[in-house]
C-alpha cells in the first residue's frame, strides 16, 4: 500500500509542481545584459525644454520607464506609476518616462488628459533606448543611487512589483 502511495506521489507531485511553477514566471522575460552594470549616461529634454542628464540624478534611486502613446500596455501601467510615484517621490526616488518613437504633440495631449506619472523625456533618435538595449515598450529600469542598474522589467508593471523593486534600489544606498 505504502509503495503505491509513494509511486502516486512521485508521479503526480513533480508534474503538478512544475506546471504550477510555470504559472508563476513570465516566459517572455529575458535577463538583460545591462543588469549589474552602470547605467549609461544620457542628456534629454523634458516637455518644457529643460535638459536632464544622469549625473544630475546621482545620489537618488531612479526608475526609468520607456513608453509611448501608441502602446496599449503603457496605458494600463500609467495609473500604477502615478500612484506609486505619489508615495515614493517624497522619499527621494526619481521617476523618468522616456518617450519611445513617438510624436511630441501626441505625448503632450496624452499627458494633458491622463496626467504625468513621471518626468517625461524625449529621446528623438532613440539613442537612449539603444544604449539601454530596449527591445520594446513598456520597459522599466531600476537604478540605485550609485547609478547601478539593479533590474529591468519588460511588460506591464503591477503596483506590488513596482514597490518591491523600488524598496530594493532604496536599500542599496
Amino acid at each position: 500500500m505504502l509503495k503505491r502511495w509513494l509511486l502516486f506521489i512521485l508521479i503526480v507531485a513533480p508534474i503538478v509542481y512544475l506546471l504550477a511553477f510555470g504559472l508563476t514566471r513570465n516566459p517572455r522575460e529575458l535577463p538583460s545584459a545591462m543588469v549589474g552594470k552602470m547605467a549609461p549616461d544620457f542628456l534629454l529634454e523634458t516637455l518644457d525644454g529643460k535638459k536632464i542628464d544622469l549625473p544630475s540624478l546621482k545620489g537618488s534611486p531612479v526608475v526609468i520607464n520607456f513608453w509611448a502613446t501608441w502602446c496599449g500596455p503603457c496605458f494600463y501601467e500609467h495609473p500604477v506609476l502615478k500612484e506609486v510615484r505619489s508615495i515614493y517621490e517624497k522619499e527621494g526616488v526619481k521617476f523618468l518616462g522616456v518617450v519611445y518613437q513617438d510624436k511630441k504633440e501626441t505625448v503632450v495631449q496624452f499627458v494633458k488628459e491622463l496626467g504625468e506619472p513621471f518626468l517625461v523625456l524625449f529621446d528623438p533618435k532613440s539613442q537612449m533606448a539603444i544604449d539601454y538595449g530596449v527591445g520594446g515598450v513598456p520597459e522599466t529600469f531600476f537604478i540605485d543611487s550609485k547609478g547601478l542598474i539593479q533590474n529591468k522589467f519588460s511588460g506591464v508593471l503591477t503596483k506590488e512589483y513596482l514597490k518591491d523593486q523600488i524598496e530594493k534600489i532604496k536599500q542599496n544606498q
Partner: protein
Amino acid sequence: MINTIGNICIFLALASSLAGMAFAYFGKMAVARKLAYTNFFAMTVAGLGMMVALLTNDFSVSYVAHVGAKETPRFYAAISLWSSLEGSILLWGWVLSGYTALCIYRNRNKFENLMPWVCISLFAIGAFFYLVLAIPANPFQSVYPVPDNGPGPNPLLQNHWLMGLHPPMLYLGYVGMSVPFSFAIASLVTGDLSNAWVSITRRWFLIAWMFLSIAIVLGGWWSYAVLGWGGYWAWDPVENASFMPWLTGTAFLHSIMVEERRQMLKIWNLVLICMTFLLTLLGTFLTRSGVLDSVHSFTESEIGLYFLFSIGIALAIATALLIWKGPQFKSPGKLDHPLSRETAFLINNLLFVCFCFVVLLGTMYPLIVEALRGVKVTVGAPFFNQMVVPLALLIILLMGVGVALPWKKGDPKTLLKLLRWPVLLMAVAVVIAFILGIKKPLVLITVAFATLSLSIMLIEMATVFWRAKRVFSLNPRRYGGFVVHIGIIFVSIGVALSGNYQKENQVHLKLGDIFEMEPYQIKLDKLYGDPQPQRFEVIAKIEVFKNGRPLGYLNPKLNFYPNNREPVGSPAVYSTVTGDLYLTLMAFEHNRLEATIRTMVTPAVSWIWGGGGVIVLGVLISAGMKKKEGEPPC
C-alpha cells in the same frame, strides 16, 4: 441578444453536463443520453451564434469587439472564432459536446457496464470546459458602449486559408482523445477490458489520431506558407505539444494489436491512452496559459490556473486508477521468440516512448532548470534534431521489417528470403541517391531504410494482388496500415531532403534585374501597392524562369495592418514534386524601384504534404473499409 443566448447556452451545457454525470452514476442512461444531446444542441447554438456575431460585426459581444473588424474578409471573420483564447475554447467545447453526443449515441445499446463511466468521464471533461467558458474565458460578455469597430484578428491568422483548417483539425484530434480516455477510465473502474472494448477504443483512437496527424501536417504547411522563413517545423513548445500525444498515440495503435492478438500489454495500453490524453491537456495548458514562450501562446491569463487544476485532477485520477486498479489486468502472456511481430511492436513502443520523452524533456527543460536552479535556458532545434534523428531512422526501418515478421515465432531463413529483393532495391536506391548528389550519411541512411521498408510493403501488396486480385478489402486494417506507413515514409524523405539541401539567398534587386539560382532565374518585374479593406499590400511581381523557360509570375507581399507595427509577409511558392522555389519580400524602397528578396530552393517539401494525404487515406481504409468475416486482426 446574442450575448444572452450565448450565455444561456453555456450555462445549459454546464448544467446538462453536471446533471448528466449524476444520472449516469445512478444508471439512468436514457436521461444521460438526452442530456448529452441537449449539451450538443446548446453548444451548437452558442458556436453558430458566435459565428453570426462575427459575420455581422456585432461588437456588443466581447469576443467580436476583441477580434472582429468591419474590414476583415468574411471567410477570415468566420474563422476568427478560433483566432483568440475565448473563441478557441468555445470551439473546443463545441467539438467535445459533439464527440460526447456521438459516442453516447453510437453505444446506446452496448457496453452496459462501461457506458455510465464513459458518460461520467466525458461529461466531467465537458463540465470543465464549460466552466472555463462561463467564467474566465467567457466570449459572450456584453460590451458597453458598443465600439464602432474592432482591431481585427491577429494578422498572422488572416493570411492563409489553411488557418480555416489547421485549428479545427487539431481540436478534432485533441478533443477526440477524450473518448478513448473515457473508455480507459471506465474499464479501470469496472474491470471490464473485453475484446469489444479494445475494438471500440482503437477505432475512436484511430480517428482522433488521424485528425491529429492532419493537424500536425497542416500546421507545418501553414508555417511554411505564411511565416516566410522557409521552414515548417521549429520545435516550438506548442508544436511539440501536439507532436507528443501523436507519438504516444502511435505507440498505442501498435501495442493494442498485441493486446488483441495475444492478450498482452493490457495495463501498458491503458497507460498509453492516459498519457496521450494528459499530453493533449498539457498541450492546451501550454497554449492557453503562456507558461512557455511560443508563437502559439495567446495570452497570459488566469485561465492557466483552471487548466492546472484540470491537469492535476485528471493526472491524479488516471494515476490512482492505474496504480490501484491496473494490476487486475495483469496478463499471463509472454514473448515466445525474439524474432516475432510482438518483439517488433515492443521495440516500436520503446522507440516511440523514448522519442516522446526526448521531446518532452526538450520542451520542459527550461522550466525544470528554472524551477531547480533559477537559471533561464533555452533548448533549440539542434538538441531535438540530434536526439530524435536516430530514433526516427530506427522507426523507419522497423516499419518495414516489423510487418514482415510473423506472430509468435519467426524463421530467420524465411525472413532473409523475404528481404532479398528489398535489400537489393535499397542498395540501388542508395547508389542512385549518391549519383544524384546526396552525400550526407544521415540522408543516405534515410533513403536506404525508407526504400527497404517501402519495398517490403509494396512487394507484399503486389503479391497479394497478383493472387487474389484485390488487396484492401482482403485485410483493410493491415493494408490500410501499410498505406499509413507509406505516407510516413514520404514525410520522412521530404523532411530529410528539405532539411538538408535547402539553398538560400538574399538579394537586392532593381526593376528588371535577374537573379540566378540553379535551376531558377527570377526577374523583378514590378513593385506596387494594393490597398485592401483590411490591409495595405506591397507586392513584388516577379517573373520566374526555369533553365531559361518562363514559368509565370510569383507575387510575394508585405501586408501592412492598421493594428500591427510590423508588416506581415506573404511568401510566394512555386511548388513541384522535386522541390519548391520560395520567395519572400523582405524590404522595398519607397521609390518602388528596388526590393530585397529572400529566395530559397528546397527539395521535396511537397512530399511532406503529400505524405500527410497518404496517411489520411490509409486511416480511412483501415478504419472505414468493411472487414471480411472471421479474418484475424492484422
